[in-house]
């Protein structure tokens, strides 16, 4: 699996180009691609969330704003231009910084969170041969880069000079750091079983055997622990104590407006996409088609790639389908469940998830030995 960076460098091999310019190009092009992915994802995910939440609450959601003259029907595609309008509004808003706030830290905080999400995309493949940079420590790199965002949240809460923001930031720090442990322990399961750290190897193992979630009951338990922990990691309800709307107004984001707030939002939805991608890669087979699992009798007659819908292009399709289903589940949780209190949150992490995750690691090794 070649990476985009390598392919850019490779395609210019014959030309007499200054190596410095080549390096800049190899950095800029993937950077723009990732930024586009994050921006488009935020636009679509916000619209999706507003419509999903509206239908669950027996109302309609955005209906008025159309785009380029297309207004949409009664039930779907109603207010499809809504997020574009919101983005334009946010970009043109006045940048308010409270008087006593720490100016430099306040400006830095959104960029740090953005950087965390950005860096994670570098090692995340979308299909068979589409990745920005092919790390041989794939999973490890992703877990590490997801942790960068915590610093940004603490800085945001602290520098706002607002007691409520400080509360939100402290809660967020405790929560995000604690829940990284069950996440790491659940991802270790697939590394143990498949023997690969890099993502291509993991998906190849799933192609040769079966999807990891079907490997053993412990792997399924690992998936459940992983999924609930990432809901906590991305600060979504029922774990959205840091931005608990009814208690702390907007928690650590209270004092932010305009473009900086848009960056926070962008990063939150980018984080959701990243964890959904990682879940589908590690547990649900990544870019493999689900038809591969089913043993249809006439698959041997027809050419393989025609019926199981496999390959590079379809790989992108399957990745996104799995990610969208998981994101839909995360949104479903948000509008159904009330919020857990801070100490209950910590209790769930340290006294329920971590023991189960540790037990999982041991038991799945035993399973591997036996079967």
């Amino acid at each position, binding site marked *: 699996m070649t990476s985009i960076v390598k392919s850019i460098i490779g395609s210019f091999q014959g030309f007499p180009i200054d190596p410095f310019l080549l390096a800049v190009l190899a950095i800029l092009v993937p950077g723009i691609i990732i930024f586009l992915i994050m921006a488009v994802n935020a636009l679509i995910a916000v619209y999706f969330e507003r419509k999903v939440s509206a239908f669950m*609450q*027996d109302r309609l959601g955005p209906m008025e704003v159309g785009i380029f003259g297309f207004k949409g029907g009664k039930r779907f595609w109603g207010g499809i231009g809504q997020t574009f309008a919101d983005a334009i509004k946010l970009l043109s808003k006045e940048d308010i910084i409270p008087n006593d706030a720490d100016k430099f830290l306040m400006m830095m905080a959104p960029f740090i969170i953005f950087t965390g999400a950005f860096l994670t995309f570098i090692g995340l493949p979308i299909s068979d041969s589409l990745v920005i940079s092919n790390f041989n420590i794939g999973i490890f790199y992703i877990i590490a880069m997801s942790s960068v965002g915590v610093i940004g949240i603490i800085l945001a809460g602290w520098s706002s000079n607002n007691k409520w923001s400080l509360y939100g930031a402290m809660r967020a720090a405790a929560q995000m750091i604690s829940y990284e442990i069950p996440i790491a322990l659940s991802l270790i399961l697939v590394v143990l079983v498949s023997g690969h750290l890099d993502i291509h190897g993991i998906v190849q193992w799933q192609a040769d055997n079966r999807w990891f979630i079907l490997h053993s009951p412990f792997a399924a338990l690992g998936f459940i622990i992983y999924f609930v922990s990432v809901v906590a990691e991305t600060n979504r309800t029922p774990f*959205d104590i840091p931005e608990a709307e*009814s*208690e702390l107004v907007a928690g650590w984001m209270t004092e932010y407006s305009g473009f900086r707030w848009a960056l926070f939002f962008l990063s939150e939805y980018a984080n959701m996409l990243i964890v959904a991608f990682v879940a589908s890669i590690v547990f649900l087979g990544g870019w493999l088609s689900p038809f591969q699992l089913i043993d249809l009798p006439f698959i041997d007659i027809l050419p393989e790639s025609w019926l199981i819908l496999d390959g590079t292009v379809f790989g992108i399709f399957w990745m996104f389908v799995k990610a969208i289903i998981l994101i839909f589940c995360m949104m479903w949780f948000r*509008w159904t*469940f*009330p*919020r*857990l209190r801070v100490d209950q949150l910590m209790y769930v992490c340290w006294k329920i998830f971590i023991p189960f995750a540790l037990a999982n690691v041991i038991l799945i090794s035993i399973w591997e030995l036996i079967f």
Partner: protein
Amino acid sequence: MDTTLDKSIVNIDEMVLNMGPQHPSTHGVLRLKIHTDGEVVSKIEPVIGYLHRCFEKHCENLSYEQIVPFADRCDYLASMHMDHAYSIAVEKLLDIELPERVEYIRVIVAELQRIASHLVAIGTFGLDVGAITPFTWTIRDRERVLDLFEALCGARLLYNYIWPGGVSHDLSPKFIQRTQEFLDYFETQIFEYNELLTGNKIFIERTADVGVMPADVGMNFGVTGPSLRGSGVDYDLRKTEPYSIYNKFDFNVPVGEGKMGTVGDCWDRYWVRMVEMEESIKIIRQAMASLPDGDVHAAMPKKIRPTKGNVYSRYESARGDVGIYIQSNGKNIPLRLKMRSPAFCNLSVLGEIGEGWMISDVITILGSLDIVLGEIDR
């Protein structure tokens, strides 16, 4: 869970947090001064008066008929109850006999108002705890009750409907049928609320065993209504001292039993409100079944001029015990009118039962007490 800190070992500075008059979760303009040690609250001091509109001073310049719209605006979420309480107090002074039809209409309307007010209480309680969907559902169902009221007297929130001596308009011909349809629809909705919120494990963890109010503490602070019934005290004015025609109806008074936690926790107070809505449906059905005919304006006095004297009359509104004290000196304007609002005393217990909990719990407890700042500040 024991959340108190051992002060001899750990030295933490106290922080005074201000949940200001503008906050998404204080139900109105209420200011809470919270002294905290980290996340644990050591002292809560409610500061009220931001919605004071001089109701009692106004009443000293208005005639008895003119006071009814002002009484509406005290507790704007249950204004039929305010009208009814005031009308009963004035009728005690005037000592008049009301036609049966008026009493039945008043009971139907008061119980519908109780359903509407409890829907708001339950919805906003869910919102405080973090569940956003039940709020939209309860408000949607409350809209149906408000539609019924709009067909009845033209107003959705502040009715000016129950006057001393009768009611302002008679029921329209389709009112009974529309109310029947609403009640049939609403019973299925209560089932949905129980599915979504009441049995939800996270909701139970947030509210059970939180903010326990022992019965004697509640009575000492003057707490009444569903908040007191959640602590196991069987005190409902409709049963202990029946006013109007409540002694003719067969209904139960739900009392908190500590089903999910301790007796008197937030879950019990919420549960009492859920069951009270079902009981109100029973009362409305019985009242509509035996509604007599008559003229609703028959007993309305042309001019209200009560004899000299004082009266204190009590009424069970959605929040508790409304007391109206009227001092009349024989003129058509009261000399003094005092409204004892239930939320006033319910809020005063927050300082007592909120200590030792975390900030998230303070909001849960405040939501379970179901206060309306309009009647606290008057």
